[in-house]
């Protein structure tokens, strides 16, 4: 047999027994989800949520919200405030920058040295972060005016100023969008398949989203608006993967009416395995390219997507499909039409 095309190297028929490991997988998934949630509520295992709760103000609900906010390294979109990127041809005096910031506005000021551009031109960058100011324009103008003292030839190349009102809206809007997406997907699957499939798909999606959030929380990767877009895409990819498996499962349920459900699930997963691998690998390779070449602005997106795709693939195999086993599926329906589905290849010409 010729080696090329390489697809021939993939075994035509695999016989992995996924369902046998469903118990272990379920344990692993639940453990990881719990770990993720713990990480979100403890600021990546760095803070005591009870302390945060006691220090926060407002209603109990708002205090829990405060804990959630501590859970992530929120970007300017969700945290609110002013973030000013400064570039200079020579080294930036961070202490001078901090002093300049302080002269412009009281309150919390954060100065970060950052790598700015892939080609290192100009080579020196720093980020100045403020809380939301009553008069942002004046603050930015003061900084602009005093830049010469920080580094020669320094200039402001990026300003993001987000008021608390907008950041709160974006945060809650993002959470609502995620919840809505998952529900919508569940109803779509319920409509196209059976309710057990819908619930299974939803469990898979919730699993993917929680684990990705956990990773962002634990490694303190900046959580921005783009990450919400990534999460929604992960939901889209995960459901895509799940649909392909479910589609084959539905077909096989009609074809092999006597086969036990667990075996049908195994068979369907094996049959779609090569597609799962190839699509997954293509997506992963493209995203690795994005991670290393796409610049800093897109690296968070690439990380979220990479991780989400691995999660999504795993969850379609080990969460969504085995979840159907819990409730079982009504098998009688395809009885009379069973023969027809096998005949379709001939009639579909």
């Amino acid at each position, binding site marked *: 047999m010729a080696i*090329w*095309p*390489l*697809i*021939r190297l993939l075994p*035509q*028929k695999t016989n992995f027994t996924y369902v046998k490991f469903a118990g272990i997988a379920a344990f692993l998934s639940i453990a990881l989800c719990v770990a993720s949630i713990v990480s979100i509520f403890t600021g990546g295992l760095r803070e005591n949520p009870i302390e945060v709760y006691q220090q926060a103000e407002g209603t109990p609900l708002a205090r829990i919200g405060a804990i959630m906010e501590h859970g992530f390294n929120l970007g300017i979109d969700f945290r609110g405030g002013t973030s000013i990127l400064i570039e200079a041809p020579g080294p930036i005096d961070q202490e001078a920058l901090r002093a300049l910031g302080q002269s412009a506005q009281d309150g919390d000021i954060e100065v970060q040295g950052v790598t700015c*551009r*892939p*080609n290192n031109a100009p080579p020196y960058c720093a980020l100045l972060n403020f809380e939301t100011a009553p008069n*942002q*324009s004046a603050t*930015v*103008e003061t900084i*602009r005016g005093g830049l010469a003292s920080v580094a020669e030839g320094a200039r*402001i*190349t*990026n300003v993001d*100023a*987000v*008021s608390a*009102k*907008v950041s709160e809206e974006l945060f809650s*809007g*993002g959470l609502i*969008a995620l919840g*809505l*997406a998952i529900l919508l*997907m569940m109803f779509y699957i319920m409509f196209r398949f059976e309710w057990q499939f819908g619930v299974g798909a939803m469990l898979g999606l919730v699993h993917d989203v929680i684990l990705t959030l956990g990773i962002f929380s634990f490694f303190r990767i900046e959580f921005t*608006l783009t990450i*919400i*877009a990534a999460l*929604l*895409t992960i*939901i*889209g990819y995960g459901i895509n993967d799940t*649909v*392909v498996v479910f589609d084959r499962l539905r077909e096989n349920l009609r074809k092999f009416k006597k086969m036990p459900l667990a075996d049908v699930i195994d068979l369907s997963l094996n*049959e*779609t395995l*090569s*597609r799962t691998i*190839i*699509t997954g690998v*293509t*997506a992963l*390779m*493209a*995203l690795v*390219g*994005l991670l290393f070449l*796409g*610049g800093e602005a*897109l690296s968070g*997106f690439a990380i979220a*997507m990479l991780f989400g795709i691995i999660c999504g693939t795993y969850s379609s195999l080990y969460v969504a499909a085995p979840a159907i086993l819990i409730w079982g599926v009504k098998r009688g329906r395809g009885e009379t039409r069973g023969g027809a589905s096998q005949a*379709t*290849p001939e009639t*579909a*010409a």
Partner: protein
Amino acid sequence: MLQVARWRIILVAVVTLLGIAFALPNFLPERVRESLPGFLPRQAINLGLDLRGGSQLLLEIDVATLQRQQLDNVADLMATSLREATPAIRYTGRSVVGDAARVRLVDPTQMEAARRALRVIGQSTTGGNDIYTFTEAADGLVEARITPVHLRELSRQAAQQSIEVIRRRIDPTGTSEVSIVRQGDERIIVQAPGVSDPEMLKQRIGQTALMTFHMVREVSPDEAQTGRLPAGTMLVEPYPGSGVSQEIVERRPRFTGERLVRASPSTDSQTNEFVLSFQLDSQGTRLFCRITSDNTGNRFAILLDNQVLTAPRINEPICGGSGQISGNFTAQSANDLAVMLRAGALPAPLTVIDERTVDASLGQDAINSGGTASAVAVIITFVFMVLAYGLFGVFACIALLVNMVLIIGAMSMIGAALTLPGIAGLILTIAMAVDANVIIYERMRDEARAGRGAALAIDSGFSRAMITIIDANLTTILAAMILFQFGAGPVRGFAWTLSIGVITSVFTAVLVTQILIAWWFRASRPKTLPI
């Protein structure tokens, strides 16, 4: 066997040609693009602000002020209606308290008549629901509140008016590329490509530029010392830079800047100072003539946003309807003020609630790295597909190429902004586009394994993979739709590329591949499937 209907071939050909026609302007230099004949599309992809550099401001209407203004009007309306009712209904205590305008009937037994008189105010002029709700108390107190629906309608109108005012202020010649659009009921997005310092924009937008003419009430220094102002007057601060002093003026303006028909900077022929020349409309001319005749020898004050610009003495009646305002102007400030006055006043104050500025060089960097990442993604995908599927992989690659042309063409045609997350969406779409091909090919392999010949395997591979592909991609479109609802600027760009990419990828992966494979099959008549 393996016949592809002619209409499908024509459809693919037409769509591909259209795609090329719309995508082409992106690869032509500006000069060539301008000289294209009129029937060809010449629009290139619209780059988002994060890629081309520029400033974006999100403005919000101060709804509380708007409500307050409207309630003032309602209180006036209520008073007028009661006064003009037959027989007239006497009232006291016309005021605005909290979210309600109120009057108190002197004789509570007249409530029924008052209700009749006030009913007209509450009805919307355009029909439909009531715009105010009235509550009555036994002691004769009548309160009117604006319904939430009407308040939303008011803020929407105010936003719409503000957009026009802002456009006249920041783009008086209509030549710049500034985009000003309403978002929701009470917000406005201003996008100014190429502007790296939005201070000028904000200053021009931020002023309400309400010009009012008041009579000055001369108060003796002793009286002023007591700190008590005469009834119906207010103390006003000088306008920054105008060089005048505080004044005490009548609270009610005699007339406002709406009566101005022309305002332009000029120089005073005697003092050589910069001044602002203005011309009033006919009603304003009559008013100004009467006021200046009645008050010769007194002073009047011109206020801008409730600050004194100038307070000259009326030396003689001015009945020509034109005049000059001196205010210690420079050439620039006289010009700016003229632009403001011509543009008119904002219906309500605006606040900047979100501001983004990206330097053009930063945007160029993003384009470069995004472009490199996309190119690498395409090459990786090509190599991988050809390695994995051989000839069929080549077909998939051709389909992917057509797909990319279609995406670029569609983006240019719709005019949707391409943003940095949008580029990420594009890369993802490239990788995901081959998914439909993979589903089809894997199905073919399944069918071949089940013992079917090449032709049958190919045929049923396509037809049976279709359902899966539609299901799988509809869900992605659903996710993109949610992104549209939720997304602000850059994320919306991502939703655009994702949804366009999904649609075009299904089109190319299914139809283009099918035609290619059908041609190949007829040419070579293989016995077995090559994958």
